[in-house]
């Protein structure tokens, strides 16, 4: 009997873990992408220049669309690793460090959200041929929206996890206090990782990237998306309000999931829940019967 026969199709893929099944290990990868034209203009550089994007990779290519996880402000791919590891049981999962963050190159001047999106769009076409599912966490959600609008053909679906920033709170004054509240929901391990990543990026870069994020209008952009969208919010997230995600959902006609008890940094703190929700969404849009929509079951 093959080991896969021991796992029932609708059960969790990691457990019960049949003997002989090894969890996908993580590998590092490095991709070089051309610097976006707008950035070169701002930087006053005429010559073609390239950015180095380092990142993490789990699992192997399968029939499932590859999943790309994009981290939030100041941190890097490590912050999405627990979720990625779980999702990698079913196929390829990639998590790049955004330009300027983690171990990727540190372009100066600090790229804006649109420039990060442009770089990630080139990164995506270099890295995977098949349309991928993009999962953006917090600030990463703005970047995946940007990528999906730039190159819709490369994006199978979008997941916006704890998407920021809502219109009523688009100022430093309104963000700082809530950001402090959010810090209180983080584990010590995540805070340690966060401190390390902030040190690598430099506080100035974090501040400038967030200034650019405050100028974004995600509620207008999601209306132009033409692929399936899932919006995911933790019920204990002080940064993202329930009314804001409802508004986003209404604009893009996607699905909305509120994970009870989950926090803002869900990809690190609630990886079991997030990976199940993402995998469930992928099963639904791929029309897989195992965990797909059942007759008689609906929200």
């Amino acid at each position, binding site marked *: 009997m093959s080991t896969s026969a021991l796992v*029932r199709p*609708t*059960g*969790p893929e*990691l*457990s*019960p873990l049949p003997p002989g099944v090894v969890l996908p290990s993580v590998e590092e990868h490095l991709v070089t992408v051309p610097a976006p034209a707008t950035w070169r203009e701002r930087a006053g550089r005429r010559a073609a220049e390239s950015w180095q994007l380092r990142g993490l990779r789990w699992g192997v290519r399968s029939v499932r669309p590859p999943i790309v996880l994009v981290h939030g402000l100041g941190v890097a791919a490590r912050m999405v690793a627990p979720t990625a590891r779980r999702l990698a049981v079913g196929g390829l999962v990639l998590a790049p460090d955004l330009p300027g963050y983690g171990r990727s190159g540190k372009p100066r001047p600090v790229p804006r959200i649109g420039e990060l999106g442009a770089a990630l769009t080139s990164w995506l076409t270099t890295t995977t041929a098949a349309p991928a599912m993009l999962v953006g966490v917090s600030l990463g959600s703005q970047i995946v929206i940007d990528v999906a609008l730039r190159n819709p053909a490369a994006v199978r679906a979008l997941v916006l996890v704890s998407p920021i920033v809502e219109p009523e709170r688009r100022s430093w004054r309104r963000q700082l206090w809530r950001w402090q509240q959010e810090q209180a929901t983080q584990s010590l391990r995540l805070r340690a990782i966060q401190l390390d990543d902030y040190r690598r990026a430099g506080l100035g870069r974090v501040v400038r990237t967030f200034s650019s994020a405050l100028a974004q209008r995600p509620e207008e952009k999601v209306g132009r998306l033409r692929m399936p969208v899932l919006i995911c919010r933790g*019920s*204990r997230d002080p940064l993202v309000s329930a009314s804001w995600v409802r508004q986003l959902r209404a604009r893009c006609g996607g699905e909305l*999931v*509120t*994970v*009870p*008890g*989950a926090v803002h940094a869900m990809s690190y703190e*609630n990886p*079991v*829940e*997030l990976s*199940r*929700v993402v*995998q*469930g*969404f992928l*099963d*639904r849009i791929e029309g897989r019967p*195992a*965990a797909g929509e*059942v007759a*008689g*079951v*609906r*929200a």
Partner: protein
Amino acid sequence: MGKRDRVVVVTGASSGIGRACALRFAERVGGLVLVARRAAALEELATECRGRGSEVLVAAVDVTDAEAVDRVAAQAVARFGRVDVWVNNAAVNLYGRTEEVPARLWHRVVQTNLFGTYHGVRAVLPWFREQGGGTLINVSSVLGHTGFPQQSAYAASKHGIRALGDCVRQEVRDVDGISVCTVLPGPVDTPLFRVAGNWTGRRVVPPGQPVPADRVAAAVLRCADRPRREVPVGGASRAGVLAARIAPGLVERAGARVLGRQHFADEATAPTEGNLFEPADFGARVDDGWRSGVDGRRRRGAKALLGAGLLLGAALVSASRAATTSRGRTRWARR
């Protein structure tokens, strides 16, 4: 776990104890999954639960279908990310002499009550293991501890549910966070008596004074907060369970003589399959008015007398047994 952080699945949610549980959980949990056969009744209940502040997923599924129950668990975690509490409550009942009721009805009761619970257990345990915890609550009955005339299918299935829970509790000892609870209600004021299959030729009325379903729901919620192995609900069922343990023979005889007579009204009815195969088109409610009826008031005295008698009998028997053993031991020790 804080307020509204939990996700709860309730089977048999359309009426009776399940409905009472759903309404109570709706005030406290973040996600609620309602499972029953009647889609319309569930939709109506879902609206009420959403009004109480919980997000609701509705699953019009028959618990006798193992794959469908598997999919309910998969859907619940895909929708909420987690299942913290799974309440196996769906049950049907059948009255009639064991040799007289049609075999397919007897089978159906065990399929719904015992197999249905088993399907819930096997559907949710893999998810519990993956997330490292969860509380499984199986609704058995006082009839999970003792027998009852004309209800062999029900009592056998409820004994089975208790045994199933005991076995699973031993199996999940390797995962600290998983608890298995068995709730043991006595007679409860629900539509169960009216919608039960009945081959006795007489109308069924609840024995003694039934407790409100909400009281059972409160016990289920306490289990969800602080899991316990077995929880009898109400003084009468506590006494019943105790008596059945101390003096099983006596309880059997008392049950056959007194309770067996009390359980049926002097009113002829035609044999009915009840809601065993097709859900009833009425009774999508918590109670069935048994507590306020004239019947209830008439029987209250009898119930008190019966309870006292059972306890006294049990005490006498246990005292005489204790005396015998102590004498025996003394003699053995002297030798």
